[in-house]
């Protein structure tokens, strides 16, 4: 199950990375001045790469097996509600 999830995430990751690359290409290609295009791409890509790498790290830190196992049992959030 985790491998299916990882495969699904890989497809999503590649899709998002492709959109990011296309945005960079678009900004560089169609900016009226090259200088402002490069500046925009720098701002966009620095934040985008930070979020994308943090997202990948966060994905692999989640205990998907444990979460999927708990799907059929009362959730941890329901347990918190009892407090």
């Amino acid at each position, binding site marked *: 199950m985790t491998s299916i999830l990882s495969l699904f995430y890989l497809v999503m990751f590649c899709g*998002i990375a492709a*959109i*990011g690359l*296309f*945005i960079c290409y*678009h*900004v560089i290609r*169609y900016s*009226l*001045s*090259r*200088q402002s295009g490069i500046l925009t791409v720098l701002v*966009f890509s620095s*934040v*985008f790469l930070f*979020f*994308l790498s*943090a*997202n990948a790290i*966060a*994905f692999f*830190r*989640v*205990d998907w097996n*444990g*979460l999927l196992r708990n799907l059929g049992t009362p959730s*941890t*959030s329901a347990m*918190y509600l009892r*407090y």
Partner: protein
Amino acid sequence: MSDYSRIRFPGIHDEERVLAVYHRHWFNIVEELFLSVILSVILLGGFFFLPSLYPEIVGSPNASLFFFLENSFFLFLWLTLFLIWIDVFFDIWIITNERIVNIEQKGLFVRRVSELRFRSIQDVTSQVVGFIPSVLDYGDVLVQTAGENPRFIFRNVPNPVGVKDLIMKLADRDRRIAEFGNISVPPKSPATGA
């Protein structure tokens, strides 16, 4: 004073001189981005205040899931923000000494470039509608033409009256050149002051 000498766009000639470049007014761009900005503020608020309101989230095994979901939202929001910005900011109107060029961007994959020669201009109208556009001085400039595309519209550009005046001056000059063959100095651009 803006320097348009470095500006390049498809089809520009060597002797062609850019007199003015117009994007949509900044307030119009902010309007388009408003929802994304509000969502970012809510997400940021959630990121900082949820752990203090519900401390059990931090210690629970779901903390990494919480972080992953929040990060995914930020990522999508950042992409959406830029996609909207590209859609709005890349709508460009360029006035040169020879013609008007309109570059219209719709999403990432639709881009329409149209141009208008001054001699086909029949009438130019500027219109400012609404309270905020009146205060911030932005609106539409409608150029009536005799060509296939009957109306050429500058949408939500700053100083629409100035844009209209510049187009009228250039159209008059073009008409005089066509009539008398007398090439005079191009009129001063209100945007550049050049």
